[in-house]
């Protein structure tokens, strides 16, 4: 078992991973014991395995879990491996940021994406508009017209169900309204009067209850359900992960194939076209890090997947080609295959432009899990009319301060 | 309140077995009828049909003048003591007994009164709070009886309601049932294997065999004038003795002859047999119809060697080797006999029975 690397991922791109492992085994002479668990339960399974001290070397980590897992000493930094750190120069800044906690970097990304603003071009022109909205207010105007003309009952698709995506949707709204949940010191500012968070939430609440351009069912709509609904042609605008563009323009999976276009994230009153970005990375378990030989092997695998394999970002590229998922290394934008693929359904320039505006989530802390639960419920309460937006954010902010002071 | 009439009724069980065949039986209103017959002859089946628990496969069943073939049991107004008790295991004794009344919406205090009254007669007052599983066999049977007793139905059906009770209790229960019949003035159909019970309770007895009625009559008729050997054998304990032989008629005198044994029939019996000289017959002598006199007159002598002596309480049973057959008689206990003694008994020739040797039907019935 000395030469076996225990590699754990969630059940995504399983075949691609396997093929890449096969190549790795051939190249390195090491063996990889590969296991995967469903995405929805991945974190729980991993927590159990960490606590139960199951053998693990390399694993996929989502940016949201980094502080927790680092604090719990389940994963270890890779700063010692210069060959890995060298890849930071190619990576998007928010990407490297997202892998860094308390000054140490915990892995290499293999997939990065951001929340995109997507619209149905046909509905837009049917409503008589030539350009997608640039601001949230403009969106409301356009949407009301569509609603009136019966083009769509709920022109905007917002997925506000409690699930792991919720924080990304909220962050995108908040960032584009020029707000933040926390300041640079990590103190809560979400509850600030006239702050971006409040206007974002207020805007969402209005669209649901005042303008009725978003279904009140949005609180049960998950990202996936929203995607399918959008693909079914129920809506004209949507906030969706950028990589969904591929699927939306695929006639076998979508009824609006060819009409799904991306625009910059609309601006809030005091906001910008900023959006939220996220990433997943390959981390090394603390277990492996404690043993030099195991750590070295793990680092090799991390590089193979997160860095270059045989001189290329093979894994990220193939992942993109297979699934349309985003990558965190800028050079790939220049890759001919990549550009060709992107241009089939999207606009590389637009993507690159928006990706540059992506910010990492500002709430990723060791207490993110606790807070996220309360915050999600608070936003939903506001949307359902059980609480005013101010109260909801106040509650979330207090929870934040509370948790922060406890740790 | 109800005349019950079976008209060519048959009962076929799902497995094809015919339990009753072509039953024709009229039970008069207010009559107390006892069904008698060997185990498996169809008595319970008959009761079940009256209660409506088993369908009449063929023929008709009337209550008064109306067919009730299709009337469900709860509209028939019968009360029944099941041979297997069929107590409700989850109800207490009290609730078991009260149930029939509760179903008929009797007032609470009336129910209470009746239940307690019945319990007292049945001597189970101290058991009213128990559940059936905590009772002895006889106690369960009394609960089953109580369940019927509290009711005032048009017909009482009782299937061996006293079989598991001791003699004393049985006698007092018998009296209760008699009293019940008297006070209710309603029809009873009763199954028992206890002859004393049958004879004391019945207005009429129905003797059945293999799903067929053999004889219907008052206890006396059945006992004194059995229609055939089956009926004759069925009643009497120890059972009636048979001797195959021949009739010899000489003038008014009819004599039964078998080997040495010659018995002259008393005149009133004999006259029904006149002109049947030479007929092969079965003679029936009940165990108690002998006497031990110092010197029996000829024509009533039964002589033989003692083969067994069995004292039973008040009497003794004597086995006697007569003409190569073993006959049993009941005689006074005070007489002492030993195995092998040759003795003579005098038969009560007024109580002899004669049956055709082949058909086994009575010749003097």
């Amino acid at each position, binding site marked *: 078992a000395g030469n076996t690397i225990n590699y754990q991922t969630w059940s995504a791109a399983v075949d691609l991973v396997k093929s890449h492992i096969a190549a790795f085994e051939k190249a390195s002479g090491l063996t990889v014991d590969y296991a995967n668990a469903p995405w*929805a339960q991945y*974190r*729980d399974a991993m*927590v159990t395995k960490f*606590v139960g001290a199951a053998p693990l070397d390399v694993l996929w980590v989502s940016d949201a879990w980094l*502080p*927790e897992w680092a*604090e*719990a000493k389940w994963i270890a930094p890779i700063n010692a491996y210069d060959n890995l750190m060298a890849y930071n120069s190619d990576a998007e800044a928010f990407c490297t940021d997202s892998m860094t906690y308390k000054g140490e970097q915990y892995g290499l990304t293999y997939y990065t994406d951001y929340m995109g603003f997507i619209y149905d071009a046909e509905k837009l022109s049917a409503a008589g508009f030539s350009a997608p909205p640039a601001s949230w207010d403009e969106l409301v105007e356009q949407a009301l017209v569509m609603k009136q003309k019966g083009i769509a*009952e709920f022109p905007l698709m917002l997925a506000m*169900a*409690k699930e792991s995506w919720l924080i990304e949707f909220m962050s995108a709204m908040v960032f584009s309204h020029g707000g933040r949940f926390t300041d640079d010191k990590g103190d809560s500012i979400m509850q600030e009067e006239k702050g971006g968070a409040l206007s974002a939430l207020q805007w969402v609440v209005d669209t649901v209850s005042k303008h009725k351009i978003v*279904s*009140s*069912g949005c*609180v*049960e*709509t998950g990202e996936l*359900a*929203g995607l*399918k*609904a959008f693909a*079914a042609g*129920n809506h004209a605008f949507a906030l969706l992960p950028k990589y969904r563009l591929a699927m939306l323009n695929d006639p076998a999976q979508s009824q609006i194939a060819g009409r799904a276009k991306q625009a910059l994230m609309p601006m809030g009153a005091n906001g910008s076209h900023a959006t939220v970005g996220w990433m997943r990375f390959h981390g090394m378990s603390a277990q492996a890090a404690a043993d030099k030989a195991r750590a070295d092997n793990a680092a090799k695998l991390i590089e193979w997947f997160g860095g270059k394999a045989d001189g290329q970002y093979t894994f990220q590229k193939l992942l993109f080609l297979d699934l349309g998922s985003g990558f965190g290394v800028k050079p790939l934008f220049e890759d001919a295959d990549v550009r060709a693929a992107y241009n089939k359904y999207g606009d590389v320039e637009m993507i690159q432009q928006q990706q540059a505006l992506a910010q990492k989530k500002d709430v990723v802390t*060791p*207490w993110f*899990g*606790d807070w*996220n*639960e309360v915050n*999600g*419920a608070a936003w*939903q309460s506001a*949307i*359902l009319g*059980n609480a005013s937006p101010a109260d909801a954010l106040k509650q979330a902010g207090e929870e934040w301060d509370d948790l922060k002071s406890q*740790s | 309140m109800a005349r019950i009439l079976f008209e060519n009724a048959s009962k076929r069980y799902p497995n094809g077995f015919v339990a009753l065949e072509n039953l024709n039986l009229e039970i008069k209103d207010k009559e107390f009828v006892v069904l008698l017959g060997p185990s498996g002859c169809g008595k319970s089946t008959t009761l*079940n049909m009256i*209660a*409506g*628990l088993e369908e009449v496969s063929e023929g008709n069943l009337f209550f008064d003048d109306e067919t009730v073939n299709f009337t*469900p*049991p*709860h509209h028939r*107004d019968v*009360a*029944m003591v*099941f041979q297997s008790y*069929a*107590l*409700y*295991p*989850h109800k207490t004794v009290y609730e078991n007994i009260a*149930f*029939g009344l509760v*179903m*008929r919406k009797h007032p609470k205090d009336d129910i209470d009164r009746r239940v307690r009254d019945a319990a007292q007669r049945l001597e189970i007052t101290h058991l009213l709070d128990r*559940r059936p599983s905590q009772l002895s066999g006889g106690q369960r049977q009394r609960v089953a009886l109580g*369940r019927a007793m509290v009711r005032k139905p048009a017909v009482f*059906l009782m299937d061996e309601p006293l079989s598991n009770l001791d003699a004393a209790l049985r006698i007092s229960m018998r009296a209760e049932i008699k009293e019940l019949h008297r006070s209710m003035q309603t029809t009873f159909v009763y199954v028992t294997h206890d002859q004393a019970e049958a004879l004391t309770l019945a207005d009429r007895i129905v003797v059945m065999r293999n799903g067929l009625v053999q004889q219907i009559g008052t206890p006396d008729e059945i006992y004194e004038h059995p229609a055939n050997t089956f009926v004759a054998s069925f009643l009497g304990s120890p059972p009636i003795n048979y001797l195959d032989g021949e009739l010899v008629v000489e003038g008014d005198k009819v004599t039964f002859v078998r080997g040495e044994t010659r018995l002259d029939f008393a005149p009133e019996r004999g006259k029904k047999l006149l002109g049947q000289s030479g007929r092969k017959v079965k003679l029936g002598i009940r165990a108690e119809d002998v006497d031990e006199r110092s010197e029996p007159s000829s024509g009533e002598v039964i002589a033989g060697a003692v083969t067994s002596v069995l004292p039973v309480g008040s009497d003794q049973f004597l086995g006697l080797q007569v003409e190569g057959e073993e006959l049993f008689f009941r005689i006074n206990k005070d007489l002492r006999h030993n195995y092998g003694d040759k003795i003579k008994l005098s038969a009560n020739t007024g109580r002899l029975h004669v049956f055709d040797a082949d058909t086994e039907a009575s010749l003097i019935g």
Partner: protein
Amino acid sequence: MVKTTGGMAASVRRHFNYEERTAYLFIAPVMAVLGLVAVFPIAYSFYLSFFQIKLTRPNRTPFVWLDNYLELFSDDLFWTAVLRTVTFTVISVTAVTVLALLAALLLNEKFRGRRLVSTVLLIPWAIPYVADALMWKWIYDSGYGALNGLLYQLDFIDKYMVWLGDQNKTLPLIANAFVWKEVPLATILLLVSLKSIPQDLYQAARVDGAPLWQRFIHVTLPSMRTGFMLVIIYETMIAIRHFDLFFILTEGGPGTASHVLSWEIYVETFRNLSFGSGAAMSYLLALVTFALAFFIIRTLGRSV
């Protein structure tokens, strides 16, 4: 002549309490399995419930005695969760029991196609919760769900409705999915108990003048007491702890509309990584469940 067997000849000691020895022998395997697999986890998690354990602070796990428990009593969200759990459990268990009784009564009849019906009835039971929950999520979907589609096409509604997103409907809808899946087992349990009622009790009741309905009340129902007990205990225990549907359908939302105890425990344990207080909640829930079971056994258990 047959020899009087060992029992009589052998020493008293050898057969001392044959009954008890057999009984212990018979229950030994179960106890061994439970001892091996279940006792340690239970004891261990119980032990954890006395510590303040936050996995993100691996070095600070003080023994806090009953604090984890006491804190719960002042936690509003906890009490909301309790209330929702009770609501969900009551709705579900009642519905399961009643529907299962009806189904069992139906399947107890003899008719052509009975086996087809009973086989079909078992289908929901055979769908793993993962698939079942996704199916319902998708049926309930407000945008393109089958429920909306069906009601719309039947003209019961004139536009698509919000289902799970409507906080007043959330719990009942989840309960509906739960009941759909749980009825088969309950039906089987009740059917078995229905089948074991001695027929002569019905005969006695008919003679006692009880019409169909009264026979049902006085013979069928009481005879099914233990069947009901099984169903109610089992379904209560399952419903009170039910997690899967909440996880896949709503994650406790919208707002806190489906924030039940099991969800709270999950959040506390796996989202917040507070194993100590998560365990404390679990044990409070366990205590309540056990008390309920105890009460049900005492009231419905066989006393005959």
